[in-house]
């Protein structure tokens, strides 16, 4: 049974030592942030903050030093990342580049690509987005239609990406597109013929249109490619292997502390609003949230240990993501039942505003990094059910 992959793993002491440094850095930098700003956490975009982090060696911690990283290993990175998220630091600018894009370039890129892309990422100056979803593709990524066609040494890119987080602020997109014939509708070839490209978003023919969401923020974008000409070295990894390259990284995307800490700003606001003597209902729910956050962190660390040992914890990471999303989405639902504070926007107490923000953000938690249906399908497969 894959369930036995879950074994308790402590953070090694040398990694845990970093924690004090990170906390004092956060005290200097974000201590005065208002709660509503902290609530945005890894959706908060602040290049100057990213550069400050980079100066301390906290971006590219899993990247070799020859490319500008500090190569201190996954647990040290874990400590830094969880402290940032718990404090609601604005990490969005470098987030995708640090977590995912740099890893992909490191694993699948050429030496030239590594030397070109990785150092600025590690300096906190180069930001990436991920071009996966398209109109009508949703969870069904194999149905994408954006296509790159060879033109001599180059490629010509046409199509459209949708729901691309931070595209309007990013320098590059790593895009998954079709490079061979077939329209993706034939069952046999659904996952074949896709490749990944690093697309410089300043190229001619690219139009980026931000999408306003229900709280008025603009995180998502539509990105249109109209005869965009890509040089040969825009291809990353092997032609036709884009799908495999994407899925290989999913365990990183699905098991980190961002998978159970998205609502922590509300937990903080709630504890303050309830005060030191909770009633029986408030005590139970706050205690339950505490217990589940602790144990989810232990699940997440268990996956980190598997990653550190070179194993493939794709199954376990799906468990962390799905259960973590459950907690993140439950927290605002529980909170609104514990105090007679009507959530509010454009005025009201800190608690009322953080509550309103997280109630409305919670639906997006299960969109990022694989819907629940996808994750549960993966888990069921591991149990031998399909």
């Amino acid at each position: 049974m894959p369930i036995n992959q879950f074994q308790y793993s402590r953070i090694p002491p040398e990694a845990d030592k970093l924690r004090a440094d990170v906390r004092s850095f956060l005290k200097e930098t974000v201590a005065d942030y208002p709660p509503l700003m902290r609530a945005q956490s890894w959706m908060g975009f602040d290049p100057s903050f990213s550069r400050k982090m980079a100066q301390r060696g906290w971006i590219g911690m899993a990247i070799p030093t020859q490319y500008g990283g500090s190569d201190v290993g996954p647990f040290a990175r874990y400590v830094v990342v969880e402290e940032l998220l718990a404090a609601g630091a604005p990490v969005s600018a470098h987030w995708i580049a640090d977590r995912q894009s740099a890893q992909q370039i490191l694993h699948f890129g050429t030496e030239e690509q590594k030397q070109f892309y990785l150092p600025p990422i590690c300096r906190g100056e180069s930001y990436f987005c991920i071009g996966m979803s398209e109109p009508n593709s949703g969870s069904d990524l194999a149905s994408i239609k954006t296509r790159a066609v060879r033109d001599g040494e180059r490629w010509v890119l046409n199509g459209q990406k949708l729901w691309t987080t931070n595209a309007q602020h990013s320098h590059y997109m790593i895009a998954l597109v079709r490079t061979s014939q077939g329209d993706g509708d034939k069952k046999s070839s659904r996952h074949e013929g896709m490749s990944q490209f690093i697309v410089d978003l300043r190229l001619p023919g690219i139009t980026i249109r931000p999408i306003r969401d229900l709280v008025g923020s603009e995180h998502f974008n539509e990105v249109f490619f109209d005869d965009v000409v890509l040089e040969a070295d825009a291809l990353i990894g092997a032609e036709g292997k884009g799908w495999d390259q994407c899925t290989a990284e999913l365990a990183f995307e699905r098991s980190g502390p961002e998978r159970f800490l998205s609502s922590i700003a509300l937990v903080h606001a709630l504890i303050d609003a309830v005060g030191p003597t909770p009633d029986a209902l408030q005590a139970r729910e706050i205690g339950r949230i505490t217990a589940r956050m602790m144990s989810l962190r232990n699940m997440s660390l268990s996956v980190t240990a598997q990653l550190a040992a070179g194993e493939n914890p794709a199954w376990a990471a799906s468990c962390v993501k799905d259960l973590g999303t459950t907690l993140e989405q439950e927290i605002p639902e529980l909170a609104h039942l514990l105090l007679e504070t009507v959530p509010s926007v454009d005025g009201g107490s800190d608690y009322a505003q953080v509550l309103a923000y997280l109630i409305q953000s919670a639906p997006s938690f299960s969109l990022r990094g694989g819907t629940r249906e996808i994750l549960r399908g993966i888990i069921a497969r591991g149990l031998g059910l399909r």
Partner: protein
Amino acid sequence: MRQLFESTVQRIFGDIVTPASLLARKAGEWPTQLWAAIEESGFSVAPAPESLGGSDASWNDLYVVVRAAGRYTVPAPLPEALLANWLLGRSGLDAISGPLSFAAANTLVFADGKVTGQLQEVPWGRHVAQVVAVVAGTGDLPSQIVVLNVKDATLANLRLNMADEPRDDLRFNAAQPLAFAALPSDLPADILLLGGAMLRSAQIAGALQAALEMTSRYATERSQFGRPIANFQAIQHRLAILAEHTANAMVASEAAFAESGDQLALLPLMAAKVCASEAASIAADTVHAIHGAIGITHEHALHLVTQRLWSWRSEFGSQTFWAQRIGREVCANGAHRFWPAITSAKLEAENNPVQKTTPSGELS
């Protein structure tokens, strides 16, 4: 009467309150055209007696109006005006057809003909002309209903609920009420909180109908993995559960209205707010999960419904607030009075008339 009401409000709302017009509104904006249509229709004064300018409509008649206000996500204090005018009528005061709201909570003191204190979280407080409140009695003095002129108030702590509906505090300093009267002795002092909960339960029921319809339709139109997502068992089950809770909230809120007359049906309305609020939570979760990313964009109409569900479930007492009030009373009465309370839809009055110490039908 009820069918006529339903078709009339549906026509008014259907013409004016389109999703496109709602999405184009500015946050907290007053709906001038819509309110004019409401005034012209006479709905907002309907619950008052004819002698005071209304049309003697019963709560049972008005249920469909309030539910439709939820279903069409009507951005105006029509439900609030109905309750305010009902209370004015019960107290012998003239109905008010202009923009009208009420405050369920306040810190008012009424002395020497002047009112001082604060009205809390008044729906549309910054826009309405008049507000109704109950000044709690002290000692031998009975509670008083007062009608206050918003022009006399200082606006404070302005805010919007998640659906961009204004919820404002109003401060009065020795203001003279436009009208006042003693609260009828058969009504509890928190009648506006109770009534507000009843209104919201029906609005939620209407919004649930809209959510269920929109999402059932979307599931049959949207395809993934080569087939409509309605084909997936997980989607079917979630929508089935949503339908069950929608039915539950509809029947519970209708019972509260149907059993209300000169007094409000207290246990049914509390139960309705508990069930409707819980259904609202389930619904918002379900319909966003099924719609996916498109559902959280501003340009899609789904959030018009879900932002109201998220707001209304908390307004005028959350599920916890009313459930605790019922639960405390049930425990105080003991197990042997539990089932009689269910069948009589009353916690105490009928079942134990001897020990009754509060006004008829009132729940302490």
